[in-house]
């Protein structure tokens, strides 16, 4: 490990001297010699909206020492990613760096020419994007994309960097390191792709890597693998890193120091442990408290006909079976959380219930009576009782319709409301979802924030006066504070209106917060189900155990302990099983 560092250090010295101007190099060295790798001072970035420029990063200072991992956290729109990119001297389309300096090893990237910056990128500063699937070129093999950068920068020849790639794949614990590089991006799983992306960023042994939400798009069970791999490799090569995320528990595992950002400004900065145990600012405290929302579990009513029952449902897309004998019940005023990783059949179950995908076998019962399998055969009355709320509120609303029409349509369609009566009901519904009617009734979806959009979708579902609402990952696209607001709202509405929820999610924190009953799905089958209190107390089904233990906790030692525990063989075999 240490000899690697020395070797790379020597290589860097050679490349560091040639380009940087004498003046700029002098500035970098005068204060803290060789210690600080990246120094950002008074960074200001503007973004264009229409014809005007508005500031999105408002004077941020940042110091990053060699070999240090800095966590940047904040809600969406806080400027995390923008700062991350600015650390490479880059601004996205429609953005510009309007002030301040970004000194990387003595060279001011804001003032440096395009050529100098280009020489640094990829070789000394690397970037790992949120969606590896979108960042890889689907037309080339992984290893060809890996070798591109070292060859381009003249650091290594093709054959040499291919050997190097295999070595890195091995260190990142990718299966079949010798062969995996010769696959195309679509032939490997999301978690593997994210690790291959990290390997690619490591190709030139950079001094600094910027990780932009690298695990956000992954399932919890895969997330662990990627987190552990990233942390190991960063430590092994003593690379400095900026880790951008909105997930506090993740950043707690990864970072040495945390910076909390809001509205493009620094809120608070402290070493990880201090930050977690004693946050100073109110905003930070509120972020920390997010996961504390917890609805009381309601007792299961005895002898009552369930509002909705899924009975032995088997379904398929074409010839691929995606659901095998799925059964569960939802009672009035209760929430059933359906949990599982992507591809486990959660959303397909919802499609069967709504009638979009008629099942091959089995049936859906509403209050004891079977529903027609296809939605087009159901009556208005039947359609009205099951409403759906989607993950992406953006695409779930017609961008050309104002709020009045979005909420008003079900009122007219199902309940025949018109004129003043409808107008009043729309306003009532808006108040119910805690939005001021007169401010929101004429807005278009484009003029709403993420959380507000999701609220409007809830109002639209409520307008139909349903008895069951299917919530498909309704909070996963939202910031934690906003998501908590939505969960509280849903919980309140359930209490007031006696709704039954089917809550599809992969986030166990959400399950803990809102569920009465939990259904765990894996590969189209229900592996375990029962009341929340039972599900969260051992003994568990092996897969539930894996799922539960994979949820990051706000404890900086959590990942170490978990990995140590798994290494001892307690859950080792199960990870393998899940990865396949």
């Amino acid at each position, binding site marked *: 490990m240490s000899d690697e560092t020395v070797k790379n250090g020597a290589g860097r010295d050679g490349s560091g001297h040639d380009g940087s101007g004498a003046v700029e190099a002098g500035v970098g060295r005068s204060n803290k010699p060789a210690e600080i790798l990246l120094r950002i001072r008074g960074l200001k970035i503007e973004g264009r909206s229409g014809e005007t420029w508005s500031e999105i990063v408002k004077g941020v200072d940042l110091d990053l020492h060699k070999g240090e991992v800095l966590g940047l956290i904040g809600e969406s729109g806080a400027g995390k990613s923008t700062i991350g990119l600015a650390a490479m001297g880059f601004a996205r389309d429609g953005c510009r760096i309007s002030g301040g300096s970004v000194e990387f090893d003595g060279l001011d990237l804001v003032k440096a020419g395009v050529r100098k910056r280009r020489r640094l990128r990829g070789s000394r500063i690397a970037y790992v994007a949120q969606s590896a699937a979108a960042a890889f070129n689907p037309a080339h093999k992984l290893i060809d994309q890996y070798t591109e950068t070292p060859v381009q920068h003249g650091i290594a020849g093709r054959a040499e960097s291919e050997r190097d790639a295999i070595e890195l794949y091995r260190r990142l614990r990718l299966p079949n390191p010798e062969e995996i590089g010769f696959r195309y991006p679509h032939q490997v799983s999301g978690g593997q792709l994210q690790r291959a992306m990290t390997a690619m960023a490591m190709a030139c042994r950079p001094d600094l890597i910027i990780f932009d939400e690298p695990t956000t798009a992954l399932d919890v069970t895969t997330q662990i693998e990627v987190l552990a791999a990233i942390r190991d490799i960063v430590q092994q090569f003593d690379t400095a890193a900026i880790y951008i995320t909105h997930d506090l528990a993740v950043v707690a595992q990864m970072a040495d120091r945390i910076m909390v950002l809001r509205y493009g400004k620094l809120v608070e900065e402290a070493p990880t442990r201090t930050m977690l145990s004693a946050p100073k600012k109110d905003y930070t405290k509120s972020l920390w408290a997010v996961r504390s929302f917890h609805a009381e579990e309601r007792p299961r009513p005895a002898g009552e006909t369930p509002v909705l029952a899924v009975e032995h449902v088997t379904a398929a897309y074409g010839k691929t079976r995606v659901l095998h004998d799925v059964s569960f019940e939802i009672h009035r005023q209760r929430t059933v959380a359906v949990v599982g990783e992507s591809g486990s059949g959660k959303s397909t179950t919802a499609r069967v219930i709504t009638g*979009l995908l008629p099942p091959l076998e089995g049936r859906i019962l509403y209050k004891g009576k079977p529903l027609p399998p296809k*939605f087009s055969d159901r009556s*208005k009355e039947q*359609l009205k009782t099951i409403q759906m709320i989607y993950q*992406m509120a953006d695409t*779930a609303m*017609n961008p050309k*319709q104002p709020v009045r029409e979005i909420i008003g349509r*079900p009122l007219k369609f199902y309940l025949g409301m018109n004129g003043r009566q409808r107008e009043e009901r729309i306003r009532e519904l808006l108040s119910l979802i805690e939005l001021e009617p007169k401010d929101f009734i004429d807005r278009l979806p484009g003029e709403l924030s993420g959380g507000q959009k999701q609220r409007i979708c809830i109002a639209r579902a409520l307008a139909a006066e349903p008895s069951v609402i299917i919530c498909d990952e309704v909070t996963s696209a939202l910031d934690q504070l906003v998501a908590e607001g939505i969960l509280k709202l849903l919980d309140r509405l359930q209490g007031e209106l006696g709704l039954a929820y089917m809550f599809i999610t992969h986030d166990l924190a959400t399950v803990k917060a809102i569920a009465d009953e939990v259904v765990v799905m894996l590969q189209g089958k229900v592996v375990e189900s029962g009341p929340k209190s039972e599900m969260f107390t051992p003994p568990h089904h092996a897969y539930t155990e894996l799922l539960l233990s994979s949820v990051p906790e706000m404890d900086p030692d959590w990942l170490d302990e978990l990995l140590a525990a798994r290494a001892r063989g307690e859950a080792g075999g199960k990870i393998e099983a899940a990865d396949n």
Partner: protein
Amino acid sequence: MEAALKLLRSAPATAIFGVTVIVTYVLVAIFAHWLAPYGETQIVGAEYLPWSDQYLLGTDNLGRDMLSRLIFGARNTVGIAFLTTCLAFLLGGLTGLLAATLRGWVDQLFSRAIDVLMAIPALIFALLILTVVGTSIPALVCVIAVLESTRVYRLARAVAMNIVVMDFVEVARLRGEGLAWIIRREILPNALPPLVAEFGLRFCFVFLFISALSFLGLGIQPPTADWGSMVRENATLITFGDITPLLPAAAIALLTVGVNFVVDWFLHKTSGLKT
């Protein structure tokens, strides 16, 4: 009205030029009777008279006033082109949206039929049909509309395909909405910007197509004034160094350029392109 003026003020110079050209053409077409010094088919003097104070642009091969014919031509050519484009959009747009929304065999049927139509070169196909059914204006309009609607169908279907998969369309389906409502309220408003832009471009092509047919003698028939046939009838003058027969062609070119400028501007506004 105020909003339209405001919009126009923010428009680039090219778009203002385009709008001016289009408005002028429309006004000329509407007020042709008052603007033209002589009648459309009225023979006023000798053949091929040069430009003079009495006949500003001279006379044509039969001794009719060129300027008057040019003005009336605006009404005939532009009017027919506009009508044809509307018809093409009605036909192609509707079938395209239907195919995208219904998918399955409806989509297959429409798409393959359109493929067959597109496989035959448009001009030759039009010549063939018009020779068979005769060259009346309704036949002309219908044939060109059907031919042009293939392109509109392709675009409408492609645009609608991207919208149909959106969750809000699923919401509407699950609500139990009928086909007409889904197409009219959910899909059409979101598909409109590219279709409107296409309308401008299609109009130009239809316009050129009619002129080409008229030039070949199968378009708008004499004695109706039409820019395409005016070029053909007076083509011999070019050999004597007189540019008069090129004026109708220039009128066509100017309108095409103007419409394209406006379409460009519209596309920029709706797609949010900045550069």
